């Protein structure tokens, strides 16, 4: 069975973290990535998961999160129009039902896409629609494996549970986004605002801004690592946590120092 015990606890832990993370300005992609990392941590090592999000017009699937899928694969399928024979996810979103493809190499749904998947050793793909409370499809959750085969009954139950939790996270993120005001109908919650509210918001797509956001997040995690060290009895673990915290801060400082040497995107000329 690809999913181990502990999945439910991991998902509940994530559920509890999501409101905090969204309040801290983390993006939907970050939140979803953490769900998938948590799922994969209690899954068979060969399980790779992904979330695709359906566009507002219900026609296309865009990348939501997939921490272990190859970037080239994610890029290749990003924005794919859904349809009756569009891989597992495009087909699942189109029909609004799970599509468990046990052999990507031979399944007709993958005829136009298997040349993208097989080079990455993606051999089977089980996709399930993610629905909002009205029952409308808002995305898909997929499990990829490097072996041919379909899901067991227990795996299907696990997938359904994961899909429900992920749906809640998406809905919560979008409600936060809606409260924050109108934004382009893309699929991320508002980005972390590092600037004070009375300052102009930095350009959303600026690489420097994104790096500064990541530096900020890294510093927050450094503090968490210090907290972990404070709570840990083992001397070795304390040293390891402190070292990781120190390196996290160095990474953050290094980014800031470099970005600050260039034009500061937070201070328009």
């Amino acid at each position: 069975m690809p999913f181990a015990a502990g999945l439910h606890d991991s998902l509940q832990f994530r559920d509890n973290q999501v409101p905090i993370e969204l309040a801290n300005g983390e993006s939907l992609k970050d939140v979803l990535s953490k769900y998938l990392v948590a799922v994969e941590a209690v899954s068979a090592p060969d399980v790779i998961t992904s979330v695709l999000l359906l566009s507002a017009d219900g026609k296309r699937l865009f990348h939501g999160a997939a921490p272990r899928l190859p970037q080239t694969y994610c890029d290749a399928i990003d924005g794919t129009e859904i349809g009756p024979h569009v891989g597992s996810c495009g087909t699942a979103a189109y029909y609004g039902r799970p599509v468990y493809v046990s052999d990507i190499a031979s399944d007709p749904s993958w005829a136009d896409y298997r040349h993208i998947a097989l080079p990455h050793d993606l051999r089977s793909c089980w996709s399930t629609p993610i629905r909002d409370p009205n029952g409308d499809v808002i995305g898909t959750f997929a499990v990829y494996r490097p072996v041919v085969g379909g899901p067991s009954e227990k795996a299907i139950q696990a997938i359904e549970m994961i899909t429900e939790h992920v749906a809640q996270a998406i809905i919560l993120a979008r409600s936060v986004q809606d409260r924050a005001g109108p934004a382009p109908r893309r699929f991320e919650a508002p980005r972390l605002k590092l600037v004070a509210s009375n300052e102009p918001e930095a350009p959303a797509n600026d690489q420097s801004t994104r790096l500064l956001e990541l530096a900020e997040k890294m510093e927050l995690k450094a503090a968490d690592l210090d907290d972990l060290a404070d709570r840990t009895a083992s001397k070795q673990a304390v040293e390891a946590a402190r070292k990781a915290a120190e390196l996290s801060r160095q990474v953050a400082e290094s980014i800031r120092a470099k970005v600050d040497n260039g034009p500061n995107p937070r201070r328009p000329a």
Partner: protein
Amino acid sequence: MSDGPAFQKAGSSAFHQDAEELLTELGLSLDRLLDLDVRESEHLISEVRIIVDQIRSELRDVGKN
């Protein structure tokens, strides 16, 4: 980038190398922490790894530009 790259070409290679070394060292320290099987550390380590991956991705994009 339309508003001028904050990462100037000059010195970027050295910065990328330094950053990559730091990120690699951080990754090793996270491996070490994970090996020690500290309770409650797994989620935190995963979250830090996500940020590390995102930084690497951004740095690669900067390098392309």
